[in-house]
């Protein structure tokens, strides 16, 4: 087997496929299950300072080209989250996703995460369907810069900045987030859908995020542009459902990938399938490590 290990920021990661934030990662039991199923790292559901119930059902809708969701940042709040996760094993393979409205909230959450023994935070600067959070924060370059500087100043955590594609100039936001150790690209696309027989929106919140196979071309473009412009470490996410999708991301500069909606199609087996597929591809195409193909088409 050709080695598929990779490195993101200062972290060495044995398997380059991770569990994306928000899918099967609210409970400790499920986080461990994904790690045991071959995810190199699992990112938790986004956690805020306070408990949030999220939106009422329907919160997801499967559509022809993927999925719409508006979960509404449901989360138990940092206190209850840490209480549940304090005793959990494999903390070194868990990245905690956090969201807040300003640098104060973000740095408070990051400090709590570090004190609890975790080493990586992923900043949700990109959820498209909750007022005052996520992409509303992530569209403001000054705020993004401020948040990352605060966390950098107050912790030794590895910082992954998850950015929104719902902006006119992604490069501007990426530059504002330059002090992060890596970018995570992309979160869902802001979207909606209609049930024509009940003449209702598919989601209770009307507006949600679009994920799954249909957004892969958009995610690839984001990875390509940001890698070309910044050369920084990137974790590619959006529409990956098999190993060949993952290879596309690597060739355009991603050092690792995340899978969310793909689990709906392939269940937990998706992690091992993609890991094995990557290894087979490298062997067949006569590469000796994953490193050799990362950004190959951009460096040329």
């Amino acid at each position, binding site marked *: 087997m050709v080695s598929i290990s990779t490195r993101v920021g200062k972290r060495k990661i044995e398997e380059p496929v991770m569990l994306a934030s928000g899918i*099967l990662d*609210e409970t400790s039991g499920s986080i461990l299950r994904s790690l045991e199923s071959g995810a190199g790292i699992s990112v938790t559901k986004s956690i805020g300072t306070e408990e949030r119930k999220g939106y009422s059902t329907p919160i997801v809708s499967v559509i022809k080209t993927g999925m719409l969701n508006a979960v509404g940042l449901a989360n*138990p709040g940092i206190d209850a989250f840490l209480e549940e996760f304090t005793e959990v094993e494999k903390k070194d393979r868990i990245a905690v996703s956090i969201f807040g409205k300003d640098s104060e909230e973000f740095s408070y959450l990051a400090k709590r995460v570090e004190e609890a023994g975790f080493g990586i935070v992923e900043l949700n600067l990109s959820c498209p369907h909750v007022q005052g959070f996520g992409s509303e924060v992530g569209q403001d370059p000054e705020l993004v810069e401020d948040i990352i500087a605060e966390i950098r100043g107050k912790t030794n955590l590895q910082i992954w900045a998850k950015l929104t594609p719902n902006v006119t100039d992604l490069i501007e936001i990426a530059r504002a987030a330059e002090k992060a150790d890596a970018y995570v690209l992309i979160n869902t696309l802001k979207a909606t859908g209609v049930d024509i027989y*009940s003449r209702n929106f*598919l989601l209770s919140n009307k507006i949600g995020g679009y994920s799954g196979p249909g957004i892969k071309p958009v995610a690839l473009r984001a990875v390509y542009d940001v890698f070309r412009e910044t050369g920084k470490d990137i974790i590619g996410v959006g529409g990956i459902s098999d190993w060949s999708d993952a290879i596309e991301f690597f060739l355009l500069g991603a050092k690792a990938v995340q899978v969310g909606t793909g689990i*709906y199609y392939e269940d937990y087996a998706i992690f091992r399938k993609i890991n094995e597929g990557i290894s087979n591809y490298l062997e067949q195409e006569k590469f000796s490590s994953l490193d050799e193909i990362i950004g190959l088409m951009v460096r040329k």
Partner: protein
Amino acid sequence: MNFSEIKEINSLGRNIFSIRFNALEEAMPGQFLMIWVPGIKEVPMSISSMDNGFEITFKVYGEATKKLSEMNVGDRIFYRGPYGKPYPEPVGKTAYVAGGTGLASLKPLINKHGGDVYIGARTKDELFLLDSNFHISTDDGSMGFQGNVVDLFLSIGKVYDTIYVCGPEIMMKNFYDRAGRKYGKNVYFSLERLMKCGIGICDSCSINGFRVCRDGPVFSYDEISMMDEFGVKRRTESGKIELMIKR
């Protein structure tokens, strides 16, 4: 999202109703649907019959079930599914142990394979779909044995090869603790947990890493034995873990 016209709606007991509608999908006993009441919410419901379309049987708890109970023949019902793993086929002598609306989930299996049925409810008015052969218990003694359905099952003391249990989790835990080990391998439990997506991605129904919507809702005795949260802790809508109130 699918929809169909309601063919039949019946009142079966105090605040208990069944709705039958046409459906082209195939379903197996133990599977469930996500029923959408537009403008209100989407709720999981067991399929209580899959011959001649689908039927759901429910008790009115809140907004969604209230609205469903007020629907009329000819109205549209919106749903997706069927979802979840079905009950395995029974072997040998079979018993069904149901608490409240848990009987809805067991009904297709009872109709297909027969066996002894133990059904418990708080009071007589909450019993439904009764048959003269059923063993009945009520908490208040208004009908049948006074006590809970697990007490009733144990007091009769018959031996079975396969047992299916569906009802409130506290009742199932009671069964698990007091009768589970004796029957071990061939006991199956159908769980009800708060569900949001119904398709195994949101994690709101998970119990020790098992998703009730996709890995269940039917679990074997051995699987239940791996869940230390079973009958002890549950999740609220935010995902926060809390103790189940009473034992």
